[in-house]
């Protein structure tokens, strides 16, 4: 598929000497929801800031919908909307004025019905004449999203959109993100709530220490890196794992009433057959068994640990 954002060999070294990005290559596909995951200071915000024109790249280039973000900045930026991580809003302007301002700033003629629709979608309509300073944090977050959507961007960046946001807003936001995706908007988000990336994203990129560690279809990532746990509920609790089963590296839990076996679904052999045979030989009987897939969070933590 044609990439709507194409980042090649992008590096950024700040004046302090800190290298925030190291030769990053990344392609975002048109119409997808892409989640960028990484610990604090990994370079997520720097990457987004360069694409949006707020920070200068030290090296490399970025194309947005085929336009170079430096040479053709007008064409490139008019397609992009950004919801920043910090709650940076005006204070004394009304909600209506600040959202209309954003639309004009991005070169679009006034369109009150559109601004009205955006405000209604974000449950901001009742607050349209309120000064921003009087709004709660969650409402300010909604205002920032409305500002980013006011010029009908084709590409939307959400930098940690759900940090410090209540459940209701989070659900509203994800509903909106899905609706936007359905209208063809490409969405790139960073988040600490990994279960959200897991739930929302089509593809996931992991960034750590300024390097893209991996980019993968979410389902593929889960399949590839997913470890499974086989939990055996025993009929009679054990005091310790018998010596004859030592090779299987089992864990004993729930006061000896559960045996846990961790295996790699991608491994040539999962070892399950051998384990069951050995259990039978050792005379260990079980009343039930279940398997658990590891979450994206566990995958993520193990990836980041592995590289550092």
């Amino acid at each position, binding site marked *: 598929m044609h990439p709507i954002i194409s980042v090649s060999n992008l590096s950024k070294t*700040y*004046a302090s000497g800190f290298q925030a990005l190291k030769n990053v290559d990344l392609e975002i596909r048109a119409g997808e929801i892409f989640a960028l995951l990484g610990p604090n200071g990994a370079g997520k915000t720097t990457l987004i800031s360069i694409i*949006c*024109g*707020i*920070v*200068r790249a030290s090296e490399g280039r970025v194309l947005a919908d085929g336009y170079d973000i430096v040479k053709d*900045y*007008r*064409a*490139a*930026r*008019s397609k*992009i909307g*950004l919801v*920043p991580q*910090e709650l*940076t*809003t*005006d*204070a*004394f*302007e009304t909600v209506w*004025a600040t959202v*209309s*301002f*954003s*639309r*004009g*700033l*991005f*070169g*679009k*003629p006034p369109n009150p019905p559109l601004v009205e629709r955006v405000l209604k979608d974000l449950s901001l309509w009742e607050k349209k004449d309120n000064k921003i300073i009087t709004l709660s944090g969650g409402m300010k977050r909604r205002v920032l999203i409305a*500002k980013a959507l006011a010029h009908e961007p084709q590409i939307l960046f959400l930098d940690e959109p759900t940090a410090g946001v209540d459940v209701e807003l989070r659900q509203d936001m994800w509903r909106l993100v899905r609706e936007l995706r359905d209208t063809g908007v490409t969405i790139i988000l960073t988040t600490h709530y990994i279960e959200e990336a897991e739930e929302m994203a089509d593809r996931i990129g992991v960034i750590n220490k300024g390097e893209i560690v991996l980019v993968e279809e979410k389902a593929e990532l889960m399949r590839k890196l997913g470890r499974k746990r086989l939990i055996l509920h025993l009929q009679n609790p054990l005091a310790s794992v018998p010596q004859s089963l030592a090779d299987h590296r089992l864990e004993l839990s729930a006061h000896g009433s559960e045996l846990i076996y961790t295996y790699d679904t991608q491994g040539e052999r999962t070892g399950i057959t051998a384990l069951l045979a050995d259990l039978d030989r050792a005379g260990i009987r079980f009343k039930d068994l279940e398997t658990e897939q590891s979450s994206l969070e566990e995958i993520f933590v193990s990836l980041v640990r592995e590289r550092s």
Partner: protein
Amino acid sequence: MNLYAVRSIYLFEMARTWRTLLQSIVSPVISTSLYFVVFGSAIGSRIDAIDGVDYGAFIVPGLIMLSLLTQSISNAAFGIYFPRFTGTIFEILSAPVSYLEIVLSYVGAAATKSILLGLIILATASLFVPLTIVHPVWMLLFLVLTAVTFSLFGFIIGIWADSFEKLQFVPMLVVTPLTFLGGSFYAIDMLPPFWRTVSLFNPVVYLVSGFRWSFFGTADVAIGVSLAMTLVFLGICLAVVAWIFRTGYRLKN
């Protein structure tokens, strides 16, 4: 040209002016009126006419310049510093606007405000002293040129400043003294020869002198020199702004 953006920023800045009407218009008018009462009426009645101009009228151009300079600088400086301080500058930087459009809209709004203020002070002054303006077109030209030049200067300060203290520093500690020593309240001929020479290094002398010439047809320095000096300062400010945007100084990492 992204005219919608220029319009948006300009109107945003002008809205700030109307919202802070007391601070931006009323307070300079009141302080200027006080100058008229103290210098024009109380002290001025004991001072002889200068170059045939009654002292009360003589100080009008200087007083307008005083407000024009300080207000142009502080308006423009605050206009760009505040978004940097709150972080909302991210939106301007990420928008499809050129540097020229950013300067045009911020400086245009700051200059509009100080020109309005200058005209209001002029109208206020005419209530205190009888005024005739010999060269009204030149008067307006100097008014606009000075407002634009010092709004640009203020814009530079607003980008350079990284604290509210620095933001106040230049208008309070540099521009106000220069204006007071720039012949706002006296003709520089009234100074001893040494200080007269020193005064010629003060750029405000040329602004006040040219502006006063447009009112009364007399000046400390030739009108051509005044105009040239104003244009030179405008040129310097434009060059600095161009450099700021080329390097991203204090705006982009």
